[in-house]
């Protein structure tokens, strides 16, 4: 028999209240009930990072979080990074550097990169690589992605993200 709970959390700054099976993953509820489709399901095992969202300011795989565990949390997806109608520096730099090929991994990449710059606005090359090591790009576009994050870091300190 289907079980349902009401789960409350903040999504991209707005409070949401959603009735859903409590053992569903946060990713399932985001995509299928709330129609927030930035986070993607690829591996469903925590290996690819396509489902990465911020949970209380830290990147996590939303495929490995029960929606029940998001109760009271602040969740941010790539849709929530824009501010006053403007893309955040990471999103802008990805566009400018052509860091996107098929685009499937990019919402997760952008979340991981933004999480890095929030904690460390002046990352080294290796720190960027480590921060993105949980996000796989099968178009093998890492070089431009890392260049884009370096460019975003230069701007991060000048803009209030």
């Amino acid at each position: 028999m289907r079980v349902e709970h009401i789960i409350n959390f903040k999504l991209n700054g707005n409070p949401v209240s959603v009735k859903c099976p409590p053992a569903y993953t946060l990713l399932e509820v985001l995509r299928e009930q709330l129609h927030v489709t930035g986070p993607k399901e690829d591996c469903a095992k925590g290996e690819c990072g396509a489902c990465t969202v911020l949970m209380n300011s830290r990147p996590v795989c939303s495929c490995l979080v029960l929606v029940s565990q998001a109760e009271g949390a602040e969740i941010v997806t790539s849709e929530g990074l824009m501010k006053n109608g403007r893309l955040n520096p990471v999103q802008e730099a990805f566009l400018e550097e052509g860091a996107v090929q098929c685009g499937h991994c990019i919402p997760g990449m952008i979340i991981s990169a933004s999480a890095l710059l929030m904690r460390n606005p002046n990352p080294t090359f290796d720190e960027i690589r480590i921060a993105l090591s949980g996000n796989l790009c099968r178009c093998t576009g890492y070089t431009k992605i890392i260049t884009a994050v370096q460019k975003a870091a230069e701007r991060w300190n000048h803009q209030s993200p």
Partner: protein
Amino acid sequence: MMLSEIQVISPRTLNEALELLHRDQAELKIVAGGSDVIVQLRDGIIQAGKLLNVLPLKELRFIRKAGNRLHIGALATYSDIIESELTCRHAWLLVNAAKQIGAVQLQNTATIGGNLGNASPAGDSLPPLYVLDAMVVTRSKSGRRKIPVEDFFVGYRKTAVRPDELIEEVHFDCLNEKDRASYVKFGLRDANAISVVDVAVALRGRMDDGSFSFARVALGAVAPTIRRARRCEEALVHRTLTDETIRQSSSFAVEEASPITDIRGSAEYRRNLVTSLVYEALSEAVFGK
């Protein structure tokens, strides 16, 4: 059981959780960070009618020092371990292991209690806990039990935790500046890789002549549980450690390995890796990187 049919209970306090486990133990499967349990549920490897979500139990998320013991709560995440000054100073090999588990996303949610409870022979926090002679503390409504980590694992993916218990914390003697310890992992890539073989070593009780009175060597992913390489340990104590004596001691470790062949490597390859990784871990511990 469909995921939509699974009940999730999220207790707010430890006492409430222990009461639920006391009453309802047969039906409850504990979930903390979820990185193992959620995948196993989806893949049908485990069945559960009810999940006990212990993640809200903030009283189990801590890292603190009491006297010379370092205490790590079951809900401490790998990120907590990586970022804690206490673990960096007093359990640096555990920090090295935590940095090599999954990637940032996993380190932010996966917990040390989950790694203990999941009891995989490739659990990367486990060899460090073996060489630290860690004590695992379990808790039930009727009280606490202290279980040495070596007795905690009773077989492949089997622990000594009773159905009415949960894992409360793990504690061990702090490493000091005279101690030497290291952790080396061989995976098929640097991030999000399950260990093919991993090794932890600790050398403690440094004597005036530079030798050590205490040695621990633990091997991961080469047997149903983590294994201590006892003859290797015996060959390391009360003896001047040179490249030659380390190499000789390392050669004994493979006696304790009974690896399987799987997608990550053949048994023969793993046996060869054991000798190399023990040598590498000991060299790093004694001579630095």
